[in-house]
């Protein structure tokens, strides 16, 4: 009883409850937290994905699908692979991190968003590259 009694008296400062929806503003996840896979775009709407499909192979669950095409690279003028759509099925993802580990150009990263629940299942299938985005200059496999 002495142990519980001590905690009762110190209950004011000792509470470990996270008052979750209230502390949304102050709640900060760790930078390595694996919430979802995102593809960062810079201010010119450019990403770093070359469409090498290594992540697609590395994924154990088939949660990444890359739809690609061949096109003329406007920086080098050579014909090379270009991604059309980087489809990411969050519903299949187990957050194992193999795709990000294997990515040679660091095109995909972990997002810290943990509020992944949605009302519609189709919303879990995402296209990670933004419309009309293109490959950043100088990125090679």
């Amino acid at each position, binding site marked *: *009883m002495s*142990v*519980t*009694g001590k*905690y*009762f008296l110190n*209950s004011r400062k*000792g*509470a*470990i*409850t996270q*008052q979750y929806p209230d502390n949304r503003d102050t709640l900060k996840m760790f930078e390595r937290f694996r919430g979802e896979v995102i593809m960062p775009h810079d201010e010119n709407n450019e990403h770093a994905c070359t469409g090498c499909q290594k992540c697609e192979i590395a994924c154990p669950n088939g949660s990444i699908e890359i739809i690609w095409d061949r096109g003329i690279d406007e920086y080098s003028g050579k014909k090379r692979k270009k991604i059309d759509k980087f489809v990411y099925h969050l519903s299949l993802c187990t957050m194992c991190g193999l795709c990000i580990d294997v990515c040679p150009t660091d095109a995909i990263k972990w997002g810290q968003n943990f509020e992944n629940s949605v009302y519609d299942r189709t919303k879990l299938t995402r296209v990670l590259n933004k419309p009309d985005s293109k490959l950043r200059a100088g990125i090679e496999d």
Partner: protein
Amino acid sequence: MPETAAQITEMIIIAIIYLGIFSVAGLFLVFMERRVAAWFQLRIGPNRVGYQGLLQTMADALKLVSKELTGTVKADKFLYNLAPYFVIISSLMALGLIPFSKSFQAFDINIGIFFLIAVSSIGVIGILLGGWASNNKYSLIGAMRSGVQTISYELSVGLSLLTMVLLTGSLQLSEMVEVQKHGWLILQGHIPAVIAFMVFMIAGTAETNRAPFDMVEAESELGAGFHTEYSGMKFAYFFLAEFINMFIIAAIATTVFFGAWLSPFGITESLPWLGIIWFLIKTFALVFLMMWFRWTFPRLRVDQLLTLEWKYLLPINLVNIVVMALIVWQKLTIQF
């Protein structure tokens, strides 16, 4: 208005007042339990509905009222529906005897203590009925455990109170309180009274089926015990009755051992209306003690429960009565 009609009206009004007390006390106790438990467990507890969550249990009660009443197909419908009322009526009846203050007591009969013990043990019939009629094996085990437990611990409750009756010489609650004007009984009876108090608290906790004696529910063993198959308001009756029973046990202990509405050393003797405050303070202190038990101790096993009663509490009690009798006979009581 003819006299009988007036009497009936009076009774109805009193009954409604007591129903109000019953529900408010029940809801407050549930809330208190949750907050106290939370503080023991490094949590905050309900704090959203109303000031500091005071209305949380109201909201829960509303939710329970609006819920669907489900039951098993093969249940004995009549007994199944009857059981919650047994439990709740018995605790409501006991509440009527509690002397909240000198003038605030519904009926002050001359066999007060005896009546309290008798009434509070009716509740177990409701539990047995509920467990049997649910047609669920877990419920049945829970109900059987409850029967065993209540019948055993009834003895200790009765005997420990009997020890104190030796001091007062009366079963009437108001007279028992009068005697305590010369010092609370726990002081008057000193050592045997303290032992009787301890035995009463243990047995009382067991009789209300609270941890560490919550064999009846034992959620890690039996799911929810006898009320597994109850839902909605019927479940709420059981739930509420449990908390009222806890309150009643604490109130009896306050009345018998701690001088009911009497203030310590008579400091507020001149203000009789403060009696109810004193009564509630003492009662809630004891309720808090029971909650402290609950959130600290592990549960006993069913055979250990019976061993504790029949091999330890009962002999202690019997010896204690003899000691108390000797003390009363030799006038060794402490009186101010």
